[in-house]
């Protein structure tokens, strides 16, 4: 894009990718993105990893090995058609044994949407995700307030910061028993809450949570769809210029580099 055109219109034009959020020195890091049958947002997660400066590594659900990756993303979609329960079948994929072991050993693991559901089914995170309270799929640009910004995946945000990333789910209502919800809040394990509008009936407006160690994060909205100007959310900077999701990916890389 020529500078002349960019200056001529007050708003950045679509496709103005800029430098993105690539982290210097991250190119040696390998971030795996798991593909289950029915996974949909895997290519988007791979793109987000690439834009953040690391190597994006596709991982196949049927494999046993994590292929020496430094972090793992379980992307969105409808693994196994959401049959039985969202994430209930994917949990038993051969690769998930390795993912669970690695997560328990401290490897950064991010579950987005269906990936969040898989993390809950795998008992890496508490609670469950159920059908939206209004019974319909919903796709919208969603405001979140960031809470715990000490996790591996959120350190590039500040607590109380409002971000906007796409949300798109049919079964995104976060539920848990009151004791678990209290515990999540008391121990500061809520990563983000819906702001302004609760799109799916999630209890206490919870959009994402972490484990106590902070290496495993589950998030219902989609940060990987707000990493590239022109294809992100509408924002004050212009149409689809929103890149508020980048921080999740850069956070993990910065965490790995400083470890």
């Amino acid at each position, binding site marked *: 894009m020529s500078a002349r055109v960019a200056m001529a219109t007050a708003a950045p034009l679509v496709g103005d990718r800029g430098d993105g959020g690539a982290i210097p020195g991250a190119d040696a890091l390998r971030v795996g993105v798991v593909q289950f049958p029915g996974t*949909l947002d895997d290519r988007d997660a791979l793109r987000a990893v690439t834009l953040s400066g690391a190597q994006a590594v596709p991982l196949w659900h*049927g494999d046993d090995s994590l292929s020496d990756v430094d972090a793992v993303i379980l992307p969105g979609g409808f693994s196994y058609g959401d049959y039985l329960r969202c994430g209930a079948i994917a949990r038993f994929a051969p690769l998930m044994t390795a993912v669970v072991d690695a997560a328990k050993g401290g490897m950064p693991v991010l579950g987005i949407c269906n990936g969040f559901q898989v993390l809950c089914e795998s008992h890496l995170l508490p609670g469950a995700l159920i059908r939206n309270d209004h019974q319909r799929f*919903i*796709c919208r640009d969603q405001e979140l307030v960031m809470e715990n910004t000490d996790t591996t995946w959120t350190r590039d945000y500040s607590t109380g910061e409002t971000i906007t990333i796409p949300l798109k789910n049919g079964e995104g209502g976060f539920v848990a028993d009151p004791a678990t919800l209290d515990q999540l809040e008391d121990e500061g394990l809520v990563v983000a809450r819906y702001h302004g509008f609760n799109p799916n009936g999630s209890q206490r407006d919870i959009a994402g949570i972490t484990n106590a160690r902070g290496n495993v994060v589950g998030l219902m909205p989609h940060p990987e769809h707000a990493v590239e100007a022109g*294809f992100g959310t509408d924002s004050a900077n212009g149409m689809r210029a929103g890149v508020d999701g980048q921080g999740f990916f850069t956070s993990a890389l910065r965490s790995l580099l400083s470890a």
Partner: protein
Amino acid sequence: MTTTASPGASSDKRVKETVEFAAQNPDVEQPFAELGLKHDEYLKIRDVLGRRPTSAELAMYSVMWSEHCSYKSSKVHLRKFGDNVTDDMKKNLLVGIGENAGVVDIGDGWAVTFKVESHNSPSYVEPYQGAATGVGGIVRDIISMGARPVAVMDQLRFGAIDHPDTARVLPGVVGGISGYGNSLGLPNIGGETVFDPSYQGNPLVNALAVGVLRHEDIRLANASGKGNKVVLFGARTGGDGIGGASILASESFDDSKPSKRPAVQVGDPFAEKVLIECCLELFHADTVEGIQDLGAAGISCATSELASNGDGGMHITLEDVLLRDPTLTPEEILMSESQERMMAVVRPDKLDEFLAITGKWEVEASVLGEVTDTGRLVIEWHGDVIVDVPPRSVAHDGPVYERPFETPSWTESTQKNTVAAAGLTKPATDDELRETVLTLAASPNLCSKDWITQQFDRYVQGNTALAFPDDAGVIRVDEQSGRGIALATDANGRYCFLDPAEGAKLALSEAHRNVATSGARPLAVTDCLNFGSPEDPEIMWQFAQTVEGLSSACLDFGIPVTGGNVSMYNQTGTTAILPTPVVGVLGVFDDVGRAIPSGWRLPGQTIYLLGTTGDELDGSAWADVVHGHLGGVPPRYRPEAERELAEILINASRDGMIDAAHDLSEGGLAQAIVESSLRWGAGARIWVTELLERDGIDLFTALFSESTARAIVAVPRSEEVRFSDMCTARGFPFVRIGMTDVGDEDHPNSLEFVDHFTIGLDELAQAHNGTLPHQFG
């Protein structure tokens, strides 16, 4: 017909109705009429075969010679699309009409395939599954060309918004598109939703899919190479979507079979998603010689089309089809429309690799037989030949009808019943005009469709640059260069009712204008022609006029029809739907970074109206919403002005002169300004004096006339000179009509028609956004 095991048969699955038996027993009475065949069609089958058909052959011919599969009423007219094409129009066409979908060259070695298809009647019977499998079917057409599907759109028509049955049909249809499309990982980037009582018993569910591929990856539906294997893969074949075959099956030997089966197919989006990825890997490994999806008429269609497009022969063993229901008869297997199935032709030396890939994706596959050079399609069932036919006679040489047509008796009186002749009361005061703007903005056909589109994933794949409610959907194809495509579809059934030929031209005009408004250069056309019964000469006249109009408009715009679909018999009793030719236009961007949205965000930009406005209110949204009136003639078709307008919009977007552009169509200037303001909640001050003087019209006409070849644009101050110079140099009429304005502490964000009336954006948004949630919860 009674089917018993032949004496000495080793299998109780053997049937009496073999080719040999049919030849020896010519006088068996056959239920051809119940299967939808006319007596002379049945005689033609006997003539082709030189004997009576077996029940399996009768099943195949009956579905393949149906209106839906054979286009027997429309064929003679559709030829016009092929005849009215210049060499220049064909220069970007890699594959034309006749294949599963047309393929268009978009440059840099990239190609795009796109098509729109109907799934109307299943969606009325069972809205969720009907709409879902409509999406599934069109997506498989796209995969069959070797392309990766990248987006879908839907064109919906329902009865009156407040009719009780609409509350059943609409949420089901939207849920089906959402449930199926979202699960495939395909962004839904646009479409139309229109309400009109004529669609009450015949809602229209058209679905468009678009895919991308490299030129060298094009796949065609043909079975070539003697000895190549024929493989059926994907979901198992079940008893859904069999329809008429139940007549043949009704007296079968086994009465323990499930008796009630859905006539509408049941979709499994998970199976389709896996099938998409599996097919792309099969293509990538170069394991496929020819491929065909299984849609209407299932295996009957796939085998006969593959064979007749290739070396002309095929021999398959039908008992090797993997079944969901082991009690299915051969006739049912041949007719079943079970979803998520594909048929491939594979070289023997590639078969192991092919099966390894289907195995990786846990997709079931069975080798049914092989390609032959006999010129015959031979199908065996447990050792007996039950089908032995020339495949072309099934797939391509079906009946062709020159159905009689005549101008409807009411045409003249309807066209004379203009807005002026009917003496419709027009709003006179500023208050009445203000009310009319709000009423139109809230009316079912012009209100916000967010309630629907929020149920569709527009983000997945990460390449969506524009989606609803912008004028066109825009998808990036090449992530490096930004090369991409724009798509828009349109059809105004009211215009088409008043004058089908002009209405069709206007549908193409508007889709073309929408694509250009987004900044893309229009390249190619697809269509889905939805009509009533072709056996009614007045309906047939509408159809003939439409094809005539559309093909001549394609010549005017210099872009070809690459493929499409015809849906007839959309009528209940003698009440036919409004003629609804959905026209889709594909455009190309060198860089989707130039895509222009339909609304403005920033204050202080100048709003120009491009084009001229006349008194053209017949068939308008205003006449419909305020007076329930439909008469007169549609707005004038102006191809030269449209092409010039398109050039201006494309250049302005390419050179960064405009920040917003929106075409004027239903609801006229008022509705366009409403939509552009509500896109991002930024108001405007509008002054119309210069426009009224130049065009010699009153404020009402300026606001609500639907004259064609018009658009509004928002131009940053720094670009005003360059933009107005361009319009002047091209001699295209343009007039400054206002300024974007987001309000301040003293005056709220609003839409102000200076010296006339003001509407606060909150009030406007409430009116525009409230209609669908109020109706559907």
